[in-house]
């Protein structure tokens, strides 16, 4: 294709009724192409790694920390629940029932004893 024909093609590709896909195919067939230099993939990956982005790894680290905190919390919560259950069972076994007094260890104590303990008389 002569340069004059190519120029005509360029201008005509902008016609409002022109098919953009057809125009681009014809231009490409004439050798119109734009590309980056070789190994753009390698350069991008190097840039991504160099800027410390790789992997999302900052996010992964954040996620790991959050996951560890969550695990510790669950372990503490489960341990606490188990301790409460053991306390409840031991109270029921030792006192025969569960009440506020038995929880406070006052079920077998008379009122006078409590006054005596509190006042020293």
């Amino acid at each position, binding site marked *: 294709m002569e*340069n004059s024909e*190519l*120029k005509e093609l*360029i*201008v005509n*590709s*902008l*016609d*409002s009724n022109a098919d*953009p*896909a057809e*125009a*681009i195919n014809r*231009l490409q067939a*004439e*050798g*119109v*192409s*734009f*590309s*980056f*230099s070789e190994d*753009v*993939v390698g*350069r*991008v*990956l190097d*840039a*991504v*790694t160099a*800027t410390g*982005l*790789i*992997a*999302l*790894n900052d*996010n*992964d680290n954040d996620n790991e920390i959050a996951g560890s905190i969550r695990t510790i919390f669950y372990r503490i919560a489960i341990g606490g629940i188990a301790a409460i259950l053991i306390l409840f069972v031991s109270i029921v076994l030792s006192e025969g029932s569960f009440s506020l007094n038995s929880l406070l260890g006052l079920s077998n104590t008379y009122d006078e004893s409590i006054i005596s303990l509190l006042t020293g008389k």
Partner: protein
Amino acid sequence: MIGESYRDKDENELVRASLDGDKLAFGEIVRRNQGMVAKTVKGMLGNTADAEDIGQDVFVKLYRSLQDFRGDSKLPAYIQKIAVNLTLNEIKKRKRFLSVFARKDNSEMPHLEIADHDNERKRDASEIVSRALMSLSSKYRIVVTMRMLQGYSTKETAEMLNLPVGTVLSRLARAQSQLKEILKKL
């Protein structure tokens, strides 16, 4: 090199793998879209070292924002928007630079001005297109790039650039008449 296994994966799989830290999956995304980005960036900025850097920046920015990609649009369209934004930012930077360091020079790329003395030299097709594009102002160049190099329809161009369809049509018409004059000199 990127393994063959990545070539079979669709874009959503590649995005997920990239988010899991798979560099090769991200490399495959770059490989698939580098041509499209090159057309936009080099069409707008010319075949310069800056354009290579901006092309690289497009993919670095993509990597940073990959978590925000929700799959509402196609990945190439998402990448194209990043490319357009970074390229337009670069053009603004160049304009600022030239406004400070160049005297009464309205050209964004003075080194690419059309020179009549080499009219007789036969240029390859890409060079003719590149020179013609660089002779247009940026607002016309972007619509021509989208249309002529990316093959976008008027509606797609309007959506990509957040412009009304009528504006795109009028810019294409003006760009076309300017190109006729420019190409006579090339």
